[in-house]
């Protein structure tokens, strides 16, 4: 990376977690600031320039969701929360509050780094005003309202395009069902998940090389959908998959 090292703020009350995150990030060329409490996190985010924040939800002094909300109230810095499994409602709430993404504990460094890179890239695109989003063979030109698959222009219905547009605007990040339904069909259809299912199915038929095993428009079960950006998923493998052969099966 030719740009200066990105600065990441790690907010977690567990010193061991902060330590491995610091090592992991520094090995990958990041500068790390640490905060052990919510108050400290908000202070650091206010006083020092940061490119991204990692926020753990269980903080001693305040709820992680409040930290997200407070930082989000004045800053557009990407925020990734560390959540626990089986807390889909909480994840949805955090995403609505302003978090960009979540990683489920326990997680591997590679998984977190992949999410971080996606969030940073999105932030960069938002700043530069880059109008095209690439996801594998798919190119979405938000300015020209054109969708190309392998450089061939696709014909989408207005709703299909709108759905893809909202996902592209958050490319790489998960977008909640509620957000998509509100943006595409309006607030009164916020609970009509079946609309989404039907349209995602149609959209996948058009944009996915193998609609049965989608790789571009992927489902985050119980939470929402994610448009997987090209390049990002290459290093987004979970911590377990880089090690397929190491474990000897009984």
């Amino acid at each position, binding site marked *: 990376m030719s740009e200066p090292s990105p600065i990441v703020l790690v907010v977690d009350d*567990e010193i*061991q*977690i902060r*330590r*491995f*995150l610091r*090592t*992991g990030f520094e*090995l990958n060329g990041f500068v790390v600031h640490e905060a052990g409490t919510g108050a400290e996190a908000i202070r650091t985010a206010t006083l020092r320039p940061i490119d991204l924040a990692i926020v753990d939800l*269980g903080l001693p002094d305040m709820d992680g969701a409040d930290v997200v909300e407070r930082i989000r109230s004045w800053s557009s810095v990407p925020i990734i929360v560390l959540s*626990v*499994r*089986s807390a*889909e*409602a909480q994840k949805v709430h955090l995403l609505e509050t302003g978090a960009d993404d979540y990683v489920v*504990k*326990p*997680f*591997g*460094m*590679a998984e977190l780094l992949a999410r971080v890179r996606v969030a940073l890239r999105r932030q960069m695109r938002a700043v530069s005003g880059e109008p095209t989003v690439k996801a594998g063979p798919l190119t979405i030109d938000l300015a020209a309202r054109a969708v190309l698959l392998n450089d061939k222009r696709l014909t989408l*219905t*207005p*709703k299909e395009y709108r759905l893809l547009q909202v996902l592209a605007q958050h490319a790489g990040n998960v977008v909640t*069902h509620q957000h998509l339904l509100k943006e595409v*069909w309006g607030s009164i*259809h916020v609970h*009509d*998940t*079946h*609309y989404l*299912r*039907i349209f*995602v*199915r149609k959209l996948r038929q058009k944009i996915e090389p193998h*609609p*049965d*095993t*989608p790789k571009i428009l992927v*489902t985050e*079960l*119980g939470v929402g959908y994610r448009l997987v950006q090209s390049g990002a998923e290459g290093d987004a493998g*979970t*911590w*377990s*998959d*880089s*090690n*397929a*052969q*190491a*474990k000897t*099966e*009984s």
Partner: protein
Amino acid sequence: MDNSPVYDRIRKQLPGIFITLALVGVLTAILFFLVWEVGLAHGSIVYLIPVVIAATRWGIVAALVAAVCGVFASAYFFYPPAYSFRVKDPQEVIDLILFVFVAVAVSQLANRLKRQLEMARQREIDVRDLYAFSRRLAVAFDVSDIHAAIEDHLASIMQRNVVLFASAREASDSSGRRAGMTVPQRVLSEVVEVASGHHDVVGGAIVTAESGEIWLVRAVSPKSREFGVLAINLGHESKERLNELRIRVDAVLADATATLERLGVAHAISEARMRSQTDQLREALIGSVSHELRTPLASILGAATVLSAAPALRQEKKLTALVHDVRDEAERLNNDIQNLLDATRISSDGIKPHVEWAEPADIINSAVERCRHRLSDRRVAIDVPPDLPLIHVDPILIQQALVQIFDNAVKYSESGSPIKVAVRTQDGRLNIDVTDKGAGLTTTEAAKIWDRFARGERHAATTSGSGLGLWIASAFIGANDGKVGATSDGPGLGTTVSIELPVSQDALPQLESGADE
């Protein structure tokens, strides 16, 4: 306008008095005719008729008016000298006394009768209300239903606003707004006092609110505090009326608590409370265990992944293998903890599915993705036909059940063997079959694998596990109105686990027209 009570009372009497006067007039005319035409000697006794009528129908005032008018009329028309109020005969005085006596006696009797009738009617209404109340209690589902029933019952009987607070905490937590009206602060604090047992006033305490309204605060039953504390808005009432109302509240509550006690409601309420406290305790325990065990695991796993990618270790093959072991074992431990947590959730009836319309293929793909590492040396084939119906389930629970089933298939099959996932719809149900070419099942095993802590005896020594996996899977599927079963051609011939989920075709909501605009 003068609205004093005396004026009011007179005005209420007026129609009766007028009709009485008319009666006396008509009677006089008839008597006059009879005396002159037929030659009747004495008619004055006939004036008792209007007196009795007036006394029974309109009360003592009208009766006295009838008596006096009757005496005067007979004096004027019938006693000599005629057409003069002067009377020589002392009979006239006796008539007057007799008339007045009859008027007073009859009207008193009539009054008492009327009051008894009124009371009987009120009693009947009370009994009917009480009956409705116990019927409602019989169908009450939980504690709040019972409280609502008590509240409504009293409100309907007293014809006043009644608020019931289940506990001191409810009163102190509430801002005073309940059931569309505001309970004044002063009343609330009295409720808190009574509910926490500081004040124990028999018959309740009278509180005058800031607005001047009078409220009665009292425990529903002095014996069992489970029934809560009542605040009744009595409005602006005089002292005597207030006492009357208090007695009435006492009577109504005595009936109500007798019903509550007969139905054993106090016991039911305290049991329900205890259960909810146990629930809270358990949830707190699960939460803290989950946090306490997971946090160090998260550090171990995270640190291991950082180490495995560290340039310094990359050349050290043996050390890298060790780091991978740390990571894999931590992962296994994490799965075991998750299973224990899931098991705790299930055995306490804690699974509450968050159903939504879900794409079956999404659930399967996501389960396969979660098991990517474990499935990596199996030949996985997924056969999902296009145009599957959407299913109304909790996708997370189904996914977790599938993960358990995959886990099991991997555990009991050889490295490199195939695992096939096939989906089909049949008779309005969606079937997901997971087939492996592994150890298979004996008949006894097939019967037992869905039990908690079931471990195959043939494999207990060679494979690890808690025996919880398939039990969790079947509970999660069951929570979604599904069924799960296993079939095998015999030991060594592989196993097929089938998940069967309902597809409610007619319940599938259609897209509104214009949804595709």
